[in-house]
């Protein structure tokens, strides 16, 4: 993987302006309701809001009391209520109940609803039905993009995944298109657009349409982001389902990183308090271990603590003047480092304890067997035992899904027996979960469709690629298959390694999964960027169910639709071909906005950061939300209304 002439990685653009824009617009909207008001905030919006504003900003704009939406409203004397919410039917009913209760008791107040990131017609319909339509004013807070870190921007829409992939609802596509429009106007124009997946394609098309209508500002500006790559989560479920072993991923799996920060409980802080810690590039300790395989983290931390000790020890041999210098200049930094170190050491300890208890080693073994495709029976009994022992319901579900996707569905006997045992262990209502998983294609039963595969592969040998593609589509409509095994073989996702895989000196992206598996999503991005298109990847694309595209010089080009590897080629605009890319003025051509529709995991982020360093790319991540296996599984369960 050594690349001749490693280029320096370009800097990421400054995304601070996104925060400022969001804050300023919110202030503007609050000022639209002059005077003192109580503010009701949707629970999901609290953490994102915390990242861009604080209470004193709200107070400056005459917010009196703050409430969480859904808690019963306290008796409030305020004359004005402002609701800051996601566009949800349930929330509309909650607001309508408040207004109607006021009306019944003869209270008159002003009401304002601020929808973030946008308003839905269905919400207005509910307001109308509840008879409060004229009583409220509605506004939109276009808070599409929250920069979580120097290179991560999140739309903070975890529901995107279920809404689009399970329910088939396209409601968030407009939001994605608007997010792209905003980024394009601030950091674009994007030169080249790559994508794979139906949603990716639709988002791209809708965004282009929005662009065509706007006046096309910033044409003459020097772009900071040269390429975008859009990808649907269902292109690669496998990666998202794997246990994470890079530090940031493990912290997310173990403690749940929420909006870029994590709550470390008493077991980590070794005190009786929890501490909320912001995890990003500013954290000098974290930024050095976040992308590392967990096994390298210990060594790093102990080295670091030894260094720290040594620096403190210097104190002993100091005279007064040196000491004064030390205290005024170095002590503060050392103290910060000390705090961070003890937190991350505490986190590591806690992770180790939890994972050892959970048979993590055995689980990873089973996962790796599934990825490589051998010893399926043994892995199946491992999963079975996991279920029987009532170990975590989410983990059991995750392993079953991994088995299903890698094997193109479970054999009917296994499916039935695992499902029965699952319902017995974790509750019969999970019948609904199984139905959802089947619908989305995460956990299926091999059926007649499976015998078709044999026929299909015979047929495809006889006819041309094109026709084979069509036949596959026909088969796919019968049962969506993941084709993981074939894709894995084609792309070499399971590295052949002789001897030990050195996790401290990784040779490829597989290090994020202990050297056992190169994340498919990242491999696709790598391949397409390397080839500057889909050419030569026809077979892979076919196995991924198509919907790939490439548009160069996005300002005027349309979509290359459907035909594998087609796309509009380097003709229309100054195509950033290799000569241009070597030109330092084209630095932006080496900045790639990777857009994950339906969420991306920290392992994927780590893998692409690694790839970027190897090849001189800077990846910026735009995701609908940070995700991991547990979040995907939880999105598939049914809760009471």
């Amino acid at each position, binding site marked *: 993987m050594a690349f001749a002439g490693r280029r320096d990685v370009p800097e990421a653009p400054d995304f601070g302006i996104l925060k400022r824009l969001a804050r300023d617009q919110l202030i503007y909207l609050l000022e639209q309701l002059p005077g003192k008001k109580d503010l009701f905030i949707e629970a999901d919006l609290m953490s994102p809001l915390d990242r861009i504003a604080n209470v*004193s900003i709200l107070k400056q704009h005459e*917010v009196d009391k703050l409430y969480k939406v859904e808690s019963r409203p306290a008796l409030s004397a305020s004359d004005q209520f402002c609701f800051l919410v996601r566009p949800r039917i349930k929330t509309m009913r909650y607001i309508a109940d408040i207004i109607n209760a006021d009306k019944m008791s003869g209270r008159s107040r002003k009401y304002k609803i601020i929808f973030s990131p946008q308003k839905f017609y269905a919400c207005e319909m509910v307001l109308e039905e509840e008879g409060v339509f004229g009583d409220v004013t509605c506004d939109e807070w276009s808070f599409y993009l929250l920069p979580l870190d120097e290179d991560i921007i999140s739309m903070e829409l975890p529901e995107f995944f279920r*809404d689009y992939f399970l329910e088939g609802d396209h409601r*968030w596509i407009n939001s994605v298109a608007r997010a792209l429009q905003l980024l394009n106007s601030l950091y674009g124009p994007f030169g080249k657009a790559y994508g794979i997946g139906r949603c990716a394609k639709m988002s791209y098309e809708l965004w282009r349409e929005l662009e065509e209508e706007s006046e096309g*500002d910033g044409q003459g500006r020097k772009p900071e982001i040269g390429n975008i790559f859009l990808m649907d989560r269902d292109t690669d479920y496998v990666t998202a389902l794997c246990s994470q072993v890079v530090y940031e991923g493990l912290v997310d799996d173990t403690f749940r990183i929420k909006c870029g920060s994590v709550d470390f409980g008493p077991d980590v802080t070794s005190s009786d308090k929890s501490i909320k810690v912001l995890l990003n590039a500013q954290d000098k300790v974290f930024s050095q271990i976040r992308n590392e395989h967990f096994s390298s983290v*210990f060594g790093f931390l*102990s080295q670091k603590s030894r260094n720290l000790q040594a620096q403190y020890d210097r104190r002993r041999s100091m005279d007064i003047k040196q000491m004064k210098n030390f205290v005024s200049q170095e002590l503060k930094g050392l103290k910060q480092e000390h705090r961070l170190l003890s937190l991350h050491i505490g986190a590591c300890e806690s992770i180790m304890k939890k994972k050892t208890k959970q048979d993590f080693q055995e689980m990873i073994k089973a996962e790796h067997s599934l990825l490589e495709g051998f010893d399926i029976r043994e892995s199946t009994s491992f999963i079975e035992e996991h279920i029987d022992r009532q170990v975590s319901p989410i983990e059991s579900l995750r392993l079953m899904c991994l088995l299903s996707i890698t094997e193109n569905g479970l054999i009917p006997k296994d499916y039935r027996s695992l499902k029965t045992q699952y319902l*017995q262990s974790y509750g019969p*209502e999970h019948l609904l979960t199984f139905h959802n998983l089947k619908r989305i294609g995460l956990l299926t039963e091999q059926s007649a469709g499976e015998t078709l595969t044999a026929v299909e592969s015979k047929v495809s040998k006889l006819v041309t690629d094109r026709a084979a593609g069509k036949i596959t589509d026909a088969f796919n409509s019968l049962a969506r298959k993941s084709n993981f095994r074939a894709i894995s073989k084609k792309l070499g996702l399971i590295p052949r390694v002789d001897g030990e895989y*050195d996790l401290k000196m990784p040779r490829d992206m597989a290090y994020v999964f202990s050297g056992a598996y190169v994340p498919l999503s990242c491999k696709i991005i790598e391949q397409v960027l390397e080839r500057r298109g889909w050419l030569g990847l026809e077979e892979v694309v076919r196995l991924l169910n198509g919907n790939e595209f490439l548009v160069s010089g996005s300002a005027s080009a349309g979509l290359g639709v459907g035909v594998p590897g087609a796309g509009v080629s380097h003709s229309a605009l100054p195509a950033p071909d290799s000569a241009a890319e070597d030109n330092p003025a084209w630095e932006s051509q080496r900045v790639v906005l990777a857009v994950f529709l339906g969420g991306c995991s920290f392992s994927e982020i780590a893998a692409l950061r690694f790839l970027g360093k190897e090849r001189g790319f800077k990846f910026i991540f735009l995701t609908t939300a940070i995700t991991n296996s547990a979040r995907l599984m939880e999105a598939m369960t049914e809760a009471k209304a």
Partner: protein
Amino acid sequence: MSRARADEEEYWHSSKFRAFTFDDEDDELSQLKESKRAVNSLRDIVDDDDDDDLERVSWSGEPVGSISWSIKETASSSTSSLEGRDSSLQKGSSSYAAFPKQVSSYSLSSLFKGRNKLPSFQSLSDALSDTGVKNYAPELRRPKTEYKDYSSDWSPKDTVRRMQRGKVCSLERFRSLQDKLVLLDEAVAGHDGNVITAVLIFLKRTLRREILFRELEVRQVALCHLIHFLKETGEQKLLLDLLRFLDRTEEVALSQYREHLNIQDVEKRREFLKVCIGLPFSAEDTSHIQDHYTLLERQIIIEANDRHLETAGQSEIFRKYPRKASILNMPLVTTLFYSCFYHYTEAEGTFSSPTNLKKTFKIPDKQYVLTALAARAKLRAWDDVDALFTTKNWLGYTKKKAPIGFHRVVEILQRNNAPVQVLQEYVRLVEDVETRLNLATKYKCHDVVIETYRDLKDRIQLTAYKCKVERGSAEEEKINSILSN
């Protein structure tokens, strides 16, 4: 088969994944502990009062002044407004300084305080001018009336476009079925789910449902939107009609079954589940629903009985181990555990006996043994554990047998702090020699280790093990006698 086996051996013997294991507790943890000691030893130097530059956080760890923190505050003391707190806060010169010290501590986020600080306020236009973008969110400042535009005759395409931009458009003039469908198709082609749903709301209001359903049957994307919309608004009856029209009988059944989640009262829930048995599920799922019903029925009986027993205070087991929660609505395996815990010896005839549950729900042996073992081990009823694995053959000899690996049995026993005598009996039964040795060494079952090395005729290991047993103990003697033979 043998090839696969060989591959596998090769795989696990190759050192590829040996580099790091999560089982390797000793090594890694000790390294960590060392680091921790080093860091902790510095605490005295570091924890002084010099904390002026740190942000205060409340006991819950939220930085004071953060929004999440304030909401919790409003929730806990809804009478005092932010104003009230403010005045107390502002006694000090800096805004948070007067906050009582004992409730605060350092938050890591304080290290990045520079980023949290109120920025010098740039206006929207200022912020934008340096990037050359002029019209971010231009709609905001326009008067509301401009949004409305009922008079113009927008084409279906333009109507959809305007709606995508969030403008209000009247759909009333799309009256012919033809017009309505063109509008719907345009909406779908525009990829904006919000608009698709808006058009569907209009169609739902202006078309007879059979006609709407018929048209949606050939428009899958729009159909998904309507189904999702009906789920969200809770229009269950219409949803069921639609699913029936589409002949999606399984979804009809599931959608009705789903409603049980919203029924709190157990009696009503049981009644409801009874009705669900008759829904058009697949044969397999029907039996799951039947089981769900039967299970709840049982739980109601058991719960009533046991609550009575517990309050009466007659039963020793309930006195000694009071119940932590009711058994209602728990999964089957949990119920089985409960019954193995409280009702182990009951005759099969009673509803609460484990054997009865096993029979009624056809619980596989493996599952049953795992659960019973966990329950009896928790009570430290080692005789019951013993009986669980003892079988007699036709000649009357007894033998230990388990449907799960004995290494699992050992693990469960160990977790419940079984004494070494009990533990080693099961460690001895672990078939794989290496696993047996590992477990025996880990849990200090010396006899098993010694016997295994003896059987392996491994003098070197046996000699080495001598230093692990106590000097002058029976174990040492045993080793010596083996070695001298």
